[in-house]
């Protein structure tokens, strides 16, 4: 394989990383903010087209000595991450262009997205670790980029907890490497498949530590502590980025490591980690929803809600481990819909909170009269988060629950029951917010509408939520094709 071919395999990520450099350099040349924004979008479109090229030309296989692999699983996440980043960048233009650090903001977003795309296609512990840390450090800085009191606090907490978590993850990696004698996921899978009980203890220690490290990214309880604080304190555009792209990447890498690396549902430790993810999922749903019940700040509420949603995905992970064949596709489908839904909600919040000057739920009173478009999009997305048909969230929950039921374990059915009850609880706080938007008297009379580009992405997200809800088949088959790679 020639050097160009190697580079071709990491093309989408490369475009984003180079784009990041270009944006940063352009800041030194041109004082015009609009051109930075445009360049960022160009880079994202370029990455998207490159990924599309991979998808249509059927590029696949390992590259760079097995450090990365191009497959439909990685491409699925590449598309999800790039599209989500695109939407975030479009929507945050007003916010970013108004500040001194616009160039750094765009550059960091791009570098973070680029390393996430790389992360989704990494196939080796070292590549995973470095890509993960690159995107993490970019996110730590992004969280504090507004340099206000709350943002600084949020980013410091995010970084310190993240550093502890990274150390734990690394310790796990060290054990996996030492026991299996290799850093490649395929090699680890081979080892686990043939290993005997003698390696059980260190292997188990290793995978618990790794799961904890990834649990931090996925915001599963009890590794979730940073989530509400960072969601509340960091700038909203950054939070929207964290909540969709970062989460998608977290789940991507977990699926790849645990499904490919630990050999899927058939090894002698599968049951252990099925139960473990089951417990984490249940705890996340209960804690996330309980926390969200009490919140008055929309961003904090969405933070807790994202913990609860991670719990839903956790059900899928448990099902995967327990041998459900539907599980992996269910997780991918859930992530796809979750990204669309959360994007819609967050972009609406970005658009609204900038005009309202507040993140309090109470200030969303009567939003439907002040800005009908934002309100309707927000309501559609909240309904989807609740899992009420005919939105995408409903199908996604159905899919995940079906996967768990199909695995045929009694305790998984119990887990589904916990999920269902929690759906009911979550309806309470989502509805409360919706009621404020629709029914309460507006505090002020003046109306507003977001920028045209923001309107566009907002409507696209809202429409996607509805279209996926009514016609889920295309996304389902995409998820199935992507998941088939792992098996």
């Amino acid at each position, binding site marked *: 394989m020639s050097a160009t071919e190697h580079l071709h395999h*990491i093309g989408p990520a490369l475009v984003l990383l180079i784009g990041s450099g270009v944006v940063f350099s352009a800041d030194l040349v041109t004082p015009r903010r609009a051109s930075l924004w445009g360049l960022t979008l160009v880079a994202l479109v370029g990455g998207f087209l490159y990924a599309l090229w991979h998808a249509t030309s059927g590029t696949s296989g390992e590259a760079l000595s097995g450090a990365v692999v191009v497959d439909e699983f990685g491409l699925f996440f590449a598309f999800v991450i790039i599209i989500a980043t695109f939407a975030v960048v479009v929507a945050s233009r007003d916010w970013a262009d108004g500040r001194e650090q616009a160039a*750094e903001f765009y550059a*960091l977003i791009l570098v973070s997205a680029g390393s996430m795309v790389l992360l989704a296609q990494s196939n*080796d512990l070292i590549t995973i670790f470095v890509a993960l840390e*690159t995107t993490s450090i*970019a996110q730590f800085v992004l969280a504090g980029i507004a340099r206000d009191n709350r943002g600084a606090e949020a980013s410091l907490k995010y970084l310190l907890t993240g550093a502890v978590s990274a150390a734990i993850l690394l310790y796990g990696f060290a054990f996996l490497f030492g026991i299996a004698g290799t850093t490649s996921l395929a090699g680890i899978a081979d080892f686990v498949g043939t290993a005997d009980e003698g390696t059980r203890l260190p292997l188990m*220690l290793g995978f618990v530590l790794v799961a904890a490290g990834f649990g931090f990214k996925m915001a599963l309880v009890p590794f979730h502590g940073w989530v509400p604080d960072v969601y509340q304190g960091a700038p909203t555009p950054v939070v929207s980025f964290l909540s969709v792209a970062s989460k998608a990447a977290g789940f991507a890498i977990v699926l790849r490591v645990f499904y490919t690396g630990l050999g899927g549902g058939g090894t002698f430790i599968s049951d252990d980690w099925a139960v473990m993810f089951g417990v984490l999922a249940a705890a996340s749903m209960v804690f996330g929803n309980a926390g969200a019940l009490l919140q008055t700040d929309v961003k904090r509420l969405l933070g807790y809600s994202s913990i609860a949603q991670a719990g839903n995905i956790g059900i899928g992970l448990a099902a995967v481990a327990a041998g459900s064949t539907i599980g992996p596709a269910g997780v991918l489908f859930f992530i796809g819909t979750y990204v669309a839904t959360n994007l819609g909600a967050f972009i609406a919040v970005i658009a609204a909170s900038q005009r309202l000057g507040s993140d309090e739920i109470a200030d969303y009173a009567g939003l439907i009269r002040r800005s009908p478009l934002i309100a309707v999009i927000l309501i559609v997305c909240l309904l989807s988060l609740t899992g009420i048909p005919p939105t995408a969230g409903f199908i996604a929950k159905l899919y995940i629950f079906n996967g768990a039921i199909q695995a045929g374990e009694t305790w998984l059915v119990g887990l589904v029951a916990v999920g269902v009850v929690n759906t009911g609880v979550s309806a309470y706080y989502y509805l409360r917010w919706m009621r404020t938007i629709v029914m309460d008297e507006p505090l002020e009379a003046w109306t507003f509408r977001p920028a045209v580009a923001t309107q566009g992405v907002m409507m696209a997200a809202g429409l996607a939520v509805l279209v996926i809800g009514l016609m889920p088949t295309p996304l389902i088959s995409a998820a199935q094709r992507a998941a088939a790679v792992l098996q």
Partner: protein
Amino acid sequence: MESTGIVVAFWVLSALTIGAGLAVFLSRNLVHAIMFLILAFLGMAGLFVTLSADFIAVAQVLIYAGAISVLLVFAVMLTPLASRDNANSLYVVPGVLAGLALAAIVGFVAFEADWAALSGAAADQRASGATIEVIGDLLIGRYVLAFEIASILLLFALLGAIVLVHERTEPAVEVEPGAAGGELARESREPA
């Protein structure tokens, strides 16, 4: 294997590292704690040598004992009004318990697990010589991608540090707007 030398070195260096680590925890003064930390780093470097990891040992001394410690000292100096007593927070009990538990778990695994398959005479023959060449080959061969991303990581960590601290827009607060930025730029370049 020149066993006695290694064995003695291992025990002495282990005691040094662990003792210095404990001192970091127990020390009442933040600056003293940093000094003990450097000592622990050095002990660790010695342990690396006993593992025939000479290149890593040198890197350890340079980066940890050198750069990172300097960074820590800088940070302490830049926050003059913060407490210097290295005091414990509210979470000292769970902290110590979690630390003990983790040490116990790893120790349990270390002695309980069936390492026979994983260690033995074969390891003794393992290259104790030219590690640098092999590492270099791996870095620009098999792990070249990680190597390149790591460079991006360093670049953006630098950029991030500057973004966070360099105050371009608030001249009213800073007497010398350039001063803080300058310090930080220097500070951030250290590790690279």
